[in-house]
């Protein structure tokens, strides 16, 4: 893949975040390039999800900042991050449980569409056309993640693996440049993990850069182009998997030695 484009897609510069006395992130700087699958790993409580939340606007960093796609990312509200092209899934799946799978993906189109209340009330032709396009795109995305046969089911009634897929489809509906997956393989068996790996590779091959937080070291090392390791909120190393695997500090962090 084109991992050597001149400008990186996302650059984090000395991002810091603390909760009271706990320093969840200590000046983390890393670079994600266009078209790569970038892994972010680390022991529990290392600050991976905090980093995610800072980047997607759920938290406001206490220091440092992000540059995304050539412009500073003002991470003060999640909707801005989504509009800029950063989509995410959640570690503990957060779907709209009482809406159907199809509706969940249709909600994902919100940020790329514009129909307002007046248009909806008058049922104008522009609104109807947009609505049809939203629906078609959502159906296509359900096909893409291969859960099209569950389109009419409530999201909360889907199996665990399908819910993970649905969350990815909903994130893809926002047309992200960077898709952030927070432990997508958590709780999956070997077969499901393998299917997930194929899905993630497919998404990357279709042109979306991926940031992956994962506990499954085997999956990360096999899938990612580059990996960053966090420990106690600080960046330990950022390199290709082969180097990271052999790094003494990483082994210590994971074995707690």
């Amino acid at each position, binding site marked *: 893949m084109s991992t050597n484009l001149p400008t990186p897609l996302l650059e984090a510069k000395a991002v810091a975040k603390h909760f009271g006395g706990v320093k969840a992130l200590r000046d983390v700087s890393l670079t994600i390039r266009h078209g790569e699958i970038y892994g972010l790993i680390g022991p529990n409580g290392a600050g991976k999800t905090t980093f995610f939340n800072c980047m997607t606007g759920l938290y406001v960093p206490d220091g440092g900042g992000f540059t995304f796609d050539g412009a500073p990312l003002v991470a003060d509200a999640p909707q801005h991050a989504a*509009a800029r092209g950063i989509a995410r899934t959640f570690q503990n799946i957060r779907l709209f449980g*009482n809406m159907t799978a199809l509706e969940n993906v249709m*909600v994902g189109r*919100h940020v790329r569409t514009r129909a307002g*209340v007046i248009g909806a009330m008058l*049922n104008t032709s522009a*609104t109807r056309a*947009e609505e049809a396009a939203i629906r078609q795109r959502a159906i296509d995305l359900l096909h893409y993640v291969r859960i099209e046969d569950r389109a009419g089911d*409530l999201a909360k009634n889907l199996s665990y693996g399908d819910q993970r897929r649905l969350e990815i489809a909903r994130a893809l509906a*926002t047309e992200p440049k960077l898709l952030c997956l927070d432990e997508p393989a958590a709780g999956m068996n070997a077969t499901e993990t393998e299917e997930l790996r194929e899905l993630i590779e497919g998404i990357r091959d279709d042109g979306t850069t991926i940031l992956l937080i994962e506990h499954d070291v085997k999956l990360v090392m096999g899938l990612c182009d580059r990996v960053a390791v966090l420990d106690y909120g600080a960046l330990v190393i950022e390199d290709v998997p082969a180097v990271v695997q052999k790094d003494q500090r990483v082994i210590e962090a994971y074995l707690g030695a």
Partner: protein
Amino acid sequence: MSKWLNPRSAFGITLIAVALLGLPFVAAMGGQAWVRILDFAILYVFLALGLNIVVGYAGLLDLGYIAFYAVGAYTWALLASPHFGLHLPIWVILPIGAALACIAGVLLGSPTLKLRGDYLAIVTLGFGEIVRIFMNNLNAPVNITNGPQGITLIDPVAFGDFKFSGNTQLFGLTLSGPMKYYYLLVALAILVVIINLRLQNSRIGRAWQAIREDEIAAKAVGINTRNIKLLAFAMGASFGGIAGGVFAAMQGFVSPESFSLMESIMILAMVVLGGMGHIPGVILGAVLLSILPEALRYGVGPIQMALFGKMMVDPESLRMLVFGLALVLVMRFKPAGLWPSPERKRELSEKRTEGKA
């Protein structure tokens, strides 16, 4: 709309239309009082559907909804009565009333954006009371609302020379004031049903439901939750404002008493008891809860006379007792409402089999 060509639906719609058209004549046989009860039932349908946008779609528990109704009613009362000597036409007042209620909705909405559930309910409850107390006390130093005495001699709804009060002869039929208001209210209610339906399956309607389901996930997919919530408050409030205007015109009299907390709770009860977020359910809830107390008012006395030959209990107190009991029983045995949306019904029955998950 191909599904409308379906003969069964066409038959159903014709049946409902005939029933809606004929209903006031049937009610009139029992006296004009029953036509007025019908009028109020439809008015409550209108209000409940407005509140349904806030509570049912966006999931924002609003206990101060009656405040917007009050704003609409007082707007009409002040702009079309001898109180200020103003007699503006309906197409001026109603939009002003809706706009003022809409602004009130945004005013209420903005400080509550970070609140949910119980906390939101308490703030909105306070807001509803503030509006009522304002209406009660804005008679000094400058007399704006005439205080607790209220405003009388309010103009009826009129289109040109056609007034909605008094009798009219039409095609050999005598239409009384309440009957004319009935048709006006049915027309308005149909309008609000259509708007509710269209919003439900729109980009904004889905955003409301997404916020109801999971606000953080809604933010993460790029929904501006602040604006979308304010929009829900504004929409609901506008409907309340319009309903208030028609109420003032129909009654010819408004006073702060009509806008008590009890009214807010009644409208919320209509939405919840009927089936939150489900339009037919909300309509059923509104009709039942507005007609049942009246039916009991007229029914409890005669039934006692027939059964015991004398009045055992004062009908007025028994009426509220039966009414309260009915509410408790419905919520106990049909927690999703009398006519819930199929999805919500499934959800609750699943919870029961799974236990508390």
